Each structure stands twice: as C-alpha cells, then as structure tokens.
C-alpha cells in the first residue's frame, strides 16, 4: 500500500480513504481523528483520484478477507 501511495505522492491512509471514496457515490467515509494535522491529511485524500489500474493494484495487495485481527471485543452484536 505504501509503495502505491508513494507513487501518488500520498500517504497510505490517504490511499485507503481514496479507495473508500471510489466505492460509489453513496459511500461517505467518516474517518476519526482528534488532531488538525490528521484532519488536513484526510481532507487532502479527497483530492486523490485513483485510476482503474490503481484500484486493481490496491485490490491485489489488499484483497477481500486480507484483514487480520478483530474489529472490537463485542463483535457478537454486529451484523444481527
């Protein structure tokens, strides 16, 4: 992810946000931060345009199911 981000002159987290934004016009990410510095970094992610090839690159290095670890302790209440 970082390598792809470097080519875009973006951070990996900006790439992640740009990817979320690329999922459809009905998707609105709400990244959390408590510092202006990261807020501004997040805002800049909205300007990162991903090409189809770049999206495919992201999908290949971070395919469905690639995440590790639990989201939170009470996953039992999620997805009911």
């Amino acid at each position: 992810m970082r390598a792809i981000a470097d080519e875009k002159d973006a951070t990996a987290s900006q790439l992640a946000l740009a990817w979320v934004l690329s999922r459809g016009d009905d998707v609105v990410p709400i990244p959390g931060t408590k510092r202006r510095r990261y807020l501004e970094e997040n805002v800049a992610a909205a300007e990162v345009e991903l090409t189809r090839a770049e999206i495919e690159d992201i999908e290949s290095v971070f395919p469905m199911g690639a995440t590790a670890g639990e989201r939170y302790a009470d996953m039992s209440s999620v997805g009911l």
Partner: protein
Amino acid sequence: MKTRMLGSVGLVVSELGLGCMGMSEFYGPRDDSEAIATIRRALELGVTFLDTADAYGPFTNERLVGRAIEGRRDQVVLATKFGNVRGSNGERLGIRGDRDYVHQACDASLERLGVDSIDLYYQHRVDRNTPIEETVGAMAELVSAGKVSYLGFSEASPETIRARMWSTRSPPCRRSIRSGHATRRTRSCRPCASWGSASSPTARSGAASSRVRSAHLTISQRRFPP
C-alpha cells in the same frame, strides 16, 4: 470539499465526514482544546458531517461536539446514535431500543449537544429484545416531534434492515436511513446499498416514505473500538 447525497431523500453531506469518538475515548489521552480546534477546522475545510454517539465518553463526546459547534449549528450536519447503554463510570449496560429509552436517549443527546434537533439519528446496535416495530416507531415519533430529521441503523445486517423497513406499521418514518458498517471481511455494504432502491411501505398515514443509505466503511479493523 465536494458533497454526496446520503441515499435518496435529500440528505446531503460532505463527501468526508469527521468521526469524533476518538476525541473523548479509546484513542489515548484527551485534549479537548485540540479536539474543538479540529472540529472547527473541519467546518472551515468543508467537512461538515460530524458523527458522535451518546456512548462515546460516555456522554462527554456529545458535550464536546456541542461546545465546538456552538454558534455554528447551521454549518453542520450532525449525526449521533443511541442504543449502546453505558453507565456514568463507563460500564456497559447492554443495548436498548424500547420506546421509552429511545425518547429518553434523544432528549438527553439534544441537551448534551445543545441543539434543537439532530440531523441524523441512528441506532448504534440492534436490540434483540425489542420488537423492531417498537424501535422504528419510536424513532419515527422523534421525526414527527421535530427532534430528528433522518433516521438510521448501524451494524445491522441487510436482512435486519429489510425486516425493519418492511415490517413497520407504526407511525410513518418520514425519512429513514440505513447505515452499514462494512468491512473487507463481511461485504455487508454492498447488499445494503443494492437494496436501497427498493420501496418501503412505512407510510401508513400517507407521509412520504423513503430511505437513505449510508455506509460506514472501516478498513482499519484493529483500530476500531466500539
């Protein structure tokens, strides 16, 4: 900052929102002055969709957001949630969606936020012990009372949301919204979104009934506490 339509009934939000939870809990020490500066900077930059919940803090995050937006209410699309019941010491007291609780929680959130109405009010988790009709009916009453504009659900499966919308015969949901926390593991976002174009028979008394859809995607799962 561009905007996006959250669903199809007119709720327009900035294409990036700001999650405020971490300002009060879960992510290390609090710094309220930097947090408030962050919220105000967000508004300056066009990030006007702010998300909080009564459970964050608990309770302190809504107060913080309220302080930050004081005098700026008209610039903000304000979202908060109910249903994750917590005690004053942070203890977790289960999930509730019964009518009395929905009303009580909403009034308390309005007071903490210091606002007359909430733009998007949504249930944080599914309450397995309360009939869906009761929760949705109570939420619709909040809309009728002018306390809330749009309704939603968080962390509910597409099946549950579908059941809610189709089973509701209680007072009309003028506007409702569905919210799915999607992950790269669950794929839960797409099923929700694809269902969003269906019609909903929630308007017994003839009020316009429609739904908005939203998706909270998280792809950083390890750093996502409740």
